[in-house]
């Protein structure tokens, strides 16, 4: 009797371990199967490309957010960064007649510098990341309003709009950017010294210091990268809508945090994986896309998102037995 019992426990244990490791993948799979049963159009290649293009904006932000959260922080300024980048581009291309690429580089630089300022304040003065980025977010959006004069600037330059619509084969530029950034982030976090330091600092800052890790550098770089990625997201967004506005990107940090959490990023710091976050990004994308296809009112989308996040995290807790 004892043996039989023990055997069953091990089997259940195996399932638990499998789900703990790949649970989010299973959730993603079930979601895709569920939506395609209700709405077969979901499965079509063009819809998949559509989803991947749409999630590319949130993906950039999420990867930056994942760095911030893994170093035991958060970056709430990403939504405002989107607006600032957008207005900078509108101002430079439409109103000042700049060349598209110079405008993009300047916009990226602006976002990166703001990322650096976030990181500097967090790591130099040991301020709470939540407070720092909550405040800089206000300043950044203020700048966006000043630059745009509070008005929407149309960006009709066709070269610039190509950033969203041009295709290499069947893949639009945002998907290519998504692939490139995913690979780079994967290598950065899982295959470089810097990635190791991010995990070490996030898991136990004191132990990292005592192991010779330069915490100031690690954290500052994390927020700087988050700024740069938010900049890329801002360019894709502006190319998509064709207009520069200071009120865009509100609430975008929520989707990014959601994708990170779904992907197994721990708010206690020190734990995340890029493949996990990528899956989290797609789960969020499928919630929007699937519900649109099925024809559910968009009001319910945010409710569904909230419920899915809580359920997924609960599942993760149960599977990893983190609650005991």
């Amino acid at each position, binding site marked *: 009797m004892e043996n039989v019992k023990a055997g069953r426990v091990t089997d259940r244990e195996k399932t638990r371990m499998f789900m703990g490791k790949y649970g989010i993948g299973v959730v993603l799979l079930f979601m895709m199967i569920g939506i395609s049963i209700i709405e077969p159009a979901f499965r079509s290649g063009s819809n998949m490309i559509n989803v991947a293009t749409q999630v590319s904006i949130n993906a950039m932000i999420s990867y930056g957010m994942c760095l911030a959260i893994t170093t035991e922080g958060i970056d709430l300024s990403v939504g405002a960064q989107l607006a600032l980048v957008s207005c900078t581009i509108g101002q430079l291309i439409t109103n000042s007649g700049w060349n598209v690429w110079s405008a993009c580089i300047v916009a990226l630089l602006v976002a990166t510098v703001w990322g650096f300022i976030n990181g500097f304040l967090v790591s130099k003065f040991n301020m709470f990341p939540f407070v720092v980025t909550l405040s800089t977010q206000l300043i950044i959006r203020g700048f966006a309003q000043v630059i745009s004069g509070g008005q929407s600037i149309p960006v009709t330059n066709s070269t610039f709009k190509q950033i969203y619509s041009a295709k290499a084969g069947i893949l639009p530029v945002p998907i290519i950017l998504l692939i490139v950034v995913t690979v780079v982030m994967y290598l950065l976090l899982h295959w470089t010294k810097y990635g190791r330091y991010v995990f070490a600092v996030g898991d136990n800052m004191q132990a990292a210091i005592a192991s010779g890790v*330069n915490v100031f550098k690690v954290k500052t770089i994390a927020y700087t990268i988050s700024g740069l990625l938010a900049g890329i997201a801002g360019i894709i967004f502006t190319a998509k809508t064709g207009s520069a506005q200071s009120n865009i990107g509100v609430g975008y940090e929520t989707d990014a945090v959601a994708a990170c959490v779904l992907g197994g990023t721990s708010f206690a710091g020190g734990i995340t994986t890029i493949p996990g976050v990528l899956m989290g990004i797609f789960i969020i994308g499928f919630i929007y896309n699937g519900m649109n296809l099925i024809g559910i009112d968009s009001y319910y989308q945010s409710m569904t998102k909230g419920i899915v996040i809580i359920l997924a995290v609960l599942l993760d807790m149960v599977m990893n037995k983190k609650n005991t």
Partner: protein
Amino acid sequence: MNKENYILECHNIRKAFGGTQALKNGELYIRPGEVHALLGENGAGKSTLMKCIIGLYSFDGGEILYEGKPFRARGPVEALNAGISMIHQELNPEPHLTIAESIFLNRESTRGIFLDKKRQNQKADEILKKFDFPYGAGTLMKKLTLAQMQMIEIIKAVSCNARLIIMDEPTSSLDSEETRQLFRTINDLKKQGVAMIYISHRMEEIFEICDRVSVFRDGTYVGEKDLEHVSKEDLISMMVGRKIENVFPKTECEIGEVVFRAENLKGNGFENVSFEVRKGEILGISGLVGSGRSETMRAIFGLEPLEEGKLFLEGKEVKIKNPGQAIRKGICMVNEDRKSWGLSLHRSIRENMSVATLPFKQKRLLLNKKREEKECKEIGELLKLKAASIEHDAFSLSGGNQQKVVLAKWLLADPKVLILDEPTRGVDVGAKSEIHSLMCRFAAKGMAVIMISSELPEVMGMSDRILVYHEGRINGEVKREELLAGTQNQETILNKAFGQ
């Protein structure tokens, strides 16, 4: 033995975590008013059994009888209400609460829906007076020393009318005077008929304060003994299932030229500190907790600022501003609290081992994980690390094995000077003696080893030379030859530590 004589009986308690059976056969018989020691290596199942008793874990099988009735607490609060309290090794005080608020946490005096602070403070003051506690009820917890916070925990237990108090390594962060005070309290409680379970790795204490002992090994109850009729060696062999011949495996090795020299160091908690350490030498640092021993070493390692003084490595002056610089120059330090300063508990053993040496072992843009894995495995084997795989979390290891991971991290750096702050605290007997042998092997290879320890037998057994700290200064030096010749002994070292 008559059944009614026991306040607590545990019969065949079993508890498994996942696939591992942490507790196979937990037996325990506690009489009212006795101090009952619990002995066993780390991972022997002592803590698991205690957590089953106070309801932190739910046990899978067996039976607990408390005051003759079957007992299964669903949590520490329920256990406390029944009269069982546990003083944990790591205290989690709320620094901003007053003493009275801590004592009466969750059972505050109230008038209607409002707190009755005045009455609560009065009640607390009465209890504090009984224990001769030096502070009043309105003092903030953060003003207390670790020993005093622990005393508050005990006072809290007594004020809840506890009849069984479990103490998990209560002396691990106390100095000898504080330990004496704790023992006086334990004796008082004993007279009042309170039973106590005393978990410790320190044999001397167990023989001094406890009446009986239960020994555990590999999750199984080995047996119980009256401490009057048993020797230290017997207990150790019960614990490890084999005899440990030599408690301190000190080997004499050749002592070479001076590797490291400190001149007139001054910093937070120490001043006027000068010493040198040679190749192949084990330099012991003794003194009371808080006498500036750890602070000096942390300043040398770059963790705390050095206000004055010069450091010389192999004859050349060096400046160290942070641990990174120290490591690059060949000075490494195992900190006293490995959970706070030593390990990323939720990362793998491999990542923990290699993090400090990445800058000089991994020069390329991408990590060479094959080489890393090979090096970590080799060092793991050298240290006899007991882990299923180096990919497991450091969290899953026992205290002794965690300490080995920290040691492995520094061995990979191939240091010239290795500083060890309480290297065997919270480590079981088997791993302790392994760590001691390793220290000797490092020294034999030409490393200079500096070891801080609060355990006198350890310092005396392992060191070639001992520096004794008193209130931030070095108050004397004892050589191994003097100890062997008998011109210096435990007492003379203690006298120096107390400033005589």
